[in-house]
């Protein structure tokens, strides 16, 4: 699903990612761990080109999205991303947060279809009005909120939510775009301990539903339980990767042994 080929990334001539290649297959749950500053976030952010790779390819559904000439927005719609600090839209209600992108993007699409129809092209798809799109997406957003049991917060602003609630809303905001893959960058690191559980629980549900996931985390329990593959990154390289059982029971490199002895 995502093929990373010789990915390199530098920030002002400091090389942060040094020639990374790996493939993330459909349905896989890849967990990335490693010491601070090893490039985990940068790697994750390169996967949907939030950081533009300095060199190499990111092939997503057959298209090299690292190519500056592709319309990255179209591809990002199919890659959800969840941040450490939630990044909910502060000026929008919970419901608006979830509906904004799907409504906007479908309205754009309908405009394009209408134009093509005016030009005399055959359009097979139904052309929805803005009102129909909003109705449809509102229903979908409410379903998503029910799923995380926050339907009564639909009209609340993010500032009034707890950290755990914010992160769960952020996750369903991504889900509203029906992504093929979800990227998580330390989704529980900014949470009070008592809220970590509810977010991990939702992520486990997603995993069970078959979502392809790439998760940067310090939650070793999650890596063991949910991961189908664990990647250890250090100094901008993938040092070791394996199934969780092998990874934690039989670490091969000294650096991973050293790292595990500190965190476990």
């Amino acid at each position, binding site marked *: 699903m995502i093929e990373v080929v010789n990915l390199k990334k530098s920030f002002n001539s400091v090389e942060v990612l040094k020639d990374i290649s790996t493939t993330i297959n459909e349905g896989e749950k890849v967990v990335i761990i490693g010491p601070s500053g090893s490039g985990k976030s940068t790697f994750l952010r390169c996967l949907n080109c*939030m950081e533009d790779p300095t060199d190499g390819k990111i092939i997503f559904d057959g298209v090299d999205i690292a190519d500056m000439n592709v319309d990255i927005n179209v591809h990002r719609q199919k890659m959800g991303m969840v941040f450490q600090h939630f990044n909910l839209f502060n000026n929008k209600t919970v419901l608006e947060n979830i509906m904004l992108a799907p409504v906007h993007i479908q309205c754009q699409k309908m405009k394009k279809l209408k134009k093509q129809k005016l030009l005399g092209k055959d359009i097979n798809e139904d052309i929805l009005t803005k009102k129909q799109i909003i109705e449809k997406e509102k229903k979908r957003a409410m379903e998503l909120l029910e799923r995380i049991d926050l339907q009564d917060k639909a009209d609340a602003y993010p500032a009034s939510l707890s950290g755990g609630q914010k992160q769960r809303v952020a996750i369903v905001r991504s889900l509203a775009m029906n992504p093929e893959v979800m990227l998580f960058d330390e989704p529980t690191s900014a949470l009070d301990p008592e809220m970590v559980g509810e977010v991990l629980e939702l992520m486990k549900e997603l995993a069970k539903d078959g979502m392809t996931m790439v998760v940067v985390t310090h939650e070793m329990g999650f890596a063991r339980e949910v991961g189908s593959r664990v990647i250890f990154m250090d100094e901008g390289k993938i040092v070791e990767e394996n199934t969780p059982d092998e990874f934690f029971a039989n670490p091969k490199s000294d650096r991973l042994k050293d790292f595990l002895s500190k965190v476990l």
Partner: protein
Amino acid sequence: MGNFQVKWEAFSRAFFDNGGYKEVLSGLQNTVLIAVIGLAIGIVLGTLLAIAEVMPQYKTLPKILNKISHTYVAFFRGTPIVVQLLVGYFVLRPLLGLQTINALTSCIIIFGMNSGAYVSEIMRGGINSVDPGQMEGGRSVGLSYSTTMLKIVIPQAIKNILPSLGNEFIALIKDTSIVSFVGAKDLYVAFKYIGTNNYEFMVPYLIMALIYIVMVLMITALIKLTERRLKKSDRSSES
């Protein structure tokens, strides 16, 4: 004080009996019109200029827009508004064949363009004060840079800079007192007309000053009120 009595009576004759109040009302209307529409133009223009300043600069087009924005702001901040008004009205208007545009409209346009330069600086600060995570959140769900900017970042930026925009409005109100240079009729023209009626300028100009002060005080109070409202809404939403 007897002297003042005479001056007051002269004023009141010109103001009430000779139709001076009509001049004052239409002058006041023009002053407010130039400032309000000027600020509206300034906010739209300033927002576009500010976006051109903060846009990522990888590609050629953003680089060009950035240069244009820089030059624009440097020009409008670097010359007195009187000069902009005179050049705009007496040089550009005939050169561009725009003689059909009257003095009032010309003033509105030029004040709007001038305000755009100042608002762009304010807006740039406002945009930079918004958490970069807001842009990332928008981009991560597939919204474009410009959509995220307009729907997410700019509204939050405007909330942060409302007080500064209020100050810009006050500056505009005061600056409009020069529009008679190109023949537009504002408060000053109205009170000069009243004074000229019987060559008594003391009372008319005193009252003109009072009207300006009252306007500025009213706007200041309005800014304070919105500031307090916003603070309150921030607090209640965080509880």
